[in-house]
C-alpha cells in the first residue's frame, strides 16, 4: 500500500472504483451519522456543551506550556516518568529505550493513532520487540499489514468475510474447518488469541484521549476493555500521546467525556473510561510497577499562534470524518496519512508540510458539515482554505489551476471585459448545447466525463442587475 499523501489524487481515483469499499462507506451515514444525531437530540442543550468543550480546549491550547509542566510534576510525584519527543524519530527512540531498560520482548498495544503517526510498530519489530495490537480493528489491520482506514474504526473498510479470511490465514494453529461466518465467532476467536498475549506481555503501550495536568492522569475511552488489560497486566505501562491532549484537570475531562462518545459513536458514554494515574499504589491490589508517558510534539507546537491553531483543540472523535462527503467517497487509505477526512485536511498540511499534504486541503467541497458537527467547534473549512492560500503563495499549486484562476482574476477586475466574456460564453454554450445541456467541451474533459453542464438560461446576472437598477 502506497502511504504517500502526495499520491492522493491517484489513490482517490482507484478508491472510487473499488467495489469492496462501497458497502463499508455506506455505513458512515447509517451507523455513525445516525448514532450521533440521536445522541445529540437526547442530550438537552448540546450547543452549550459544545461551547463549554471549546472553551476548555482553548484554555488548554493557550496554556499548553504551563499544563504540560504541571502534568509532568504530577506524574513524577506519583513515581512515573515523562519523556518529551520533538519528532517521530525521537519518540521511537525514547519508547525503545524504556522497553529495553525494562527487558521487554513482547508488548501489547491499546489503540493509539500517535503510534501510527510515528510508525512505531515496524521500528519495534526491527529492534527485536514484538508489538501486538489488541483493539479488534487494529489487530485485524495489523494482521493484514494495512494502516487503519478510520481513526476510531481501523478496519472500517473491511467486510466480515475479509476478516474471516484474515483469521484463517493468520491463526494457523486452529481448526481450519471451524466456522467464522458470524461476527461474534470472529470476536470470540480474537478474544481467546489475544488473552494469551495480554497475559504474557512484558509491557503495554496505550494512547490517551486526554491528559489531566492537575492529577497527572492519562484518560482513555474504549468499548472493548483492551486498553485496560494492556495497562494492568504487564509490569510496565507506557502512554504515548500528543502534547495537545493535555487539559487542566479532571473536572474539564468530565465535560469533554460528555462530548466525545456522543460525537464519535453516538454513545452517551463509552463502555469503559479509564483514568490512569501512575504506577500501582502501595495499598493497591494490582496495576503496573512502572509508568511512563511519552509526549510527542512532531509538528504540533509550531501551529500555536498560526491560523491553524484551532485544529489543536481536536479530541479525535471522528465526527468530521463520519460526515464528510469526500471521505464518504474515497475512504481513509486514499489519504496516505494517519489522519484522514476534514481533520486530516486541516492538520496534515501543518504538521507534514503543505508541499506534502496540500491535496488533503484541496479535497473539500466546503460544504461545512464537518464544522457543524465538530464537538469543539474547529472551523475546519477555514483552516483548509488557509492551507490552500499557503499553497498558492508558495507557488505549489498546479499550473493548470493557477493559470485558469489568473485569467479569471484578470477579467474579474475589469467589468467591461468580464461582461463581454460572460455574454460570449453564454452564447457559445447555448450554440453547442443540445436540449438545454452541454455534454462536452474541448477543455475540462475530466469534469465532463462524469457530469453535464446546463445551458445558461435568459440574461446574465450582470445584465439583470443593471435592469433592476
Amino acid at each position, binding site marked *: 500500500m502506497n502511504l504517500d499523501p502526495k499520491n492522493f489524487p491517484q489513490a482517490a481515483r482507484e478508491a472510487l472504483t473499488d467495489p469492496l469499499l462501497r458497502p463499508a462507506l455506506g455505513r458512515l451515514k447509517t451507523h455513525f451519522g445516525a448514532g450521533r444525531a440521536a445522541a445529540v437530540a437526547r442530550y438537552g442543550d448540546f450547543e452549550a456543551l459544545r461551547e463549554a468543550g471549546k472553551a476548555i480546549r482553548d484554555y488548554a491550547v*493557550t496554556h499548553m*506550556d504551563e499544563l504540560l509542566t504541571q502534568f509532568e510534576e504530577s506524574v513524577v510525584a506519583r513515581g512515573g516518568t515523562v519523556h518529551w519527543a520533538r519528532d517521530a524519530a525521537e519518540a521511537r527512540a525514547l519508547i525503545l529505550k524504556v522497553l529495553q531498560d525494562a527487558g521487554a520482548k513482547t508488548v501489547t498495544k491499546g489503540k493509539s493513532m500517535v503510534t501510527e503517526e510515528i510508525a512505531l510498530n515496524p521500528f519495534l519489530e526491527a529492534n527485536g520487540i514484538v508489538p501486538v495490537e489488541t483493539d479488534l480493528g487494529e489487530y485485524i489491520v495489523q494482521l493484514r499489514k494495512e494502516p487503519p482506514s478510520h481513526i476510531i*474504526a481501523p478496519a472500517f473498510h473491511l467486510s466480515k468475510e475479509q476478516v474471516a479470511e484474515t483469521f484463517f490465514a493468520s491463526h494457523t494453529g486452529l481448526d481450519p474447518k471451524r466456522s467464522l461466518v458470524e*461476527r461474534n465467532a470472529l470476536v470470540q476467536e480474537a478474544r481467546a488469541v489475544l488473552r494469551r498475549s495480554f497475559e504474557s506481555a512484558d509491557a503495554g503501550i496505550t494512547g490517551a484521549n486526554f491528559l489531566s495536568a492537575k*492529577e497527572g492522569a492519562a484518560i482513555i475511552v474504549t468499548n472493548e476493555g483492551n486498553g485496560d488489560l494492556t495497562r494492568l497486566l504487564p509490569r510496565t505501562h507506557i502512554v504515548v500521546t500528543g502534547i495537545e491532549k493535555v487539559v487542566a484537570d479532571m473536572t474539564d475531562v468530565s465535560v469533554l467525556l460528555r462530548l466525545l462518545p456522543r460525537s464519535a459513536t453516538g454513545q*452517551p458514554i463509552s*463502555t469503559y473510561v479509564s483514568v490512569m494515574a501512575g*504506577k500501582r499504589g502501595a495499598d493497591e*491490589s494490582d496495576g503496573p510497577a512502572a509508568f511512563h508517558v511519552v509526549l510527542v510534539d512532531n509538528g504540533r507546537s509550531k501551529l500555536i499562534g498560526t491560523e491553524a491553531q484551532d485544529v489543536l483543540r481536536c479530541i479525535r472523535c471522528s465526527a468530521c470524518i463520519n460526515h464528510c462527503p469526500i471521505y464518504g467517497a474515497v475512504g481513509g487509505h486514499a489519504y496516505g496519512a494517519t489522519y484522514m477526512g476534514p481533520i486530516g485536511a486541516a492538520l496534515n498540511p501543518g504538521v507534514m508540510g503543505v508541499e506534502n499534504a496540500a491535496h488533503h486541503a484541496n479535497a473539500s467541497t466546503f460544504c461545512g458539515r464537518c464544522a457543524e458537527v465538530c464537538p469543539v467547534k474547529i472551523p475546519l473549512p477555514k483552516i483548509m482554505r488557509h492551507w490552500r492560500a499557503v499553497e498558492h503563495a508558495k507557488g505549489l499549486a498546479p499550473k493548470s489551476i493557477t493559470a485558469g484562476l489568473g485569467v479569471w482574476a484578470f477579467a474579474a477586475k475589469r467589468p467591461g471585459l468580464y461582461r463581454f466574456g460572460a455574454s460570449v460564453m453564454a452564447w457559445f454554450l447555448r450554440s453547442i448545447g443540445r436540449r438545454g445541456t452541454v455534454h462536452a467541451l474541448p477543455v475540462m474533459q475530466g469534469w465532463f466525463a462524469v457530469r453535464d453542464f446546463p445551458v445558461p438560461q435568459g440574461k446574465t446576472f450582470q445584465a439583470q442587475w443593471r435592469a433592476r437598477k
Partner: protein
Amino acid sequence: MSGGRDEILSSIRARQLVRTPKPEIYSAPKSEGDLAESFAKKLSVQFADVRLLDSMADVPAAIADVLRGKNMAQRVHIAPDSALALDLPGIEVSREPPGQNEAAVTEVPFAIAETGTLAYPAGKGRPASWHFRPVLEIAVLRASDVLPELEDVLKRLGGVLPSTLNLVSGPSRTGDIEQTMELGAHGPKSLAVLVVKS
C-alpha cells in the same frame, strides 16, 4: 529527562499569543427523580442485567440466579481483602484472579446516575483488572452510593486519585467488524449489577 523538553516548551512559548481565560464550570443537565432508579434505567439499556434488591441478605440468591441464567457453574471469584462480606451457600468461592470464562463478584464503591456507570477506584481488595478478566461480572452496589454525576465521584475521592479509576457502563463490546455491535470483545460478555436498597 530528555533534551526535547526545553525545546518543546520554548517552541510553545515562542508562539503563544493570546491566553484565553479559564472557562466557567459547566453544569450538565440534571436527571430527575430517584438516583438509583435513574442509574438502573440508564445501565439497563446498555445491555446490563440490573436487579434491585431489598437487602444484602438477598445477594447470595441473586448471585446464584445470575449464574444459573448464564448456564454457568456455581463458582465465583472474589478478590482477597474484598470488603464484600458474603456468605454464599452452595457457591464455590475462589480468591485467584478470574480466567476469561469465569465469573467475578465485585464491590462497587460509587455509581453515576447520569450515565448508568459503575465507578471503581482501585484499592486494597479492589483489583482493577478484575473488571476485565472474567466473562461475567456480578457487581454489588448500595443504592446510597449512586451519585448524580462523575464530578460528584471526583469530589468524594477528595481530589486524590488512585492509580486507576475505572468507569464501567455495560459489558465489553466492539463495533469494529462492519460497525455492528458484538458483546464480549475482551472484557466481560455479561454484566449483572445487584443494587441493594438498604
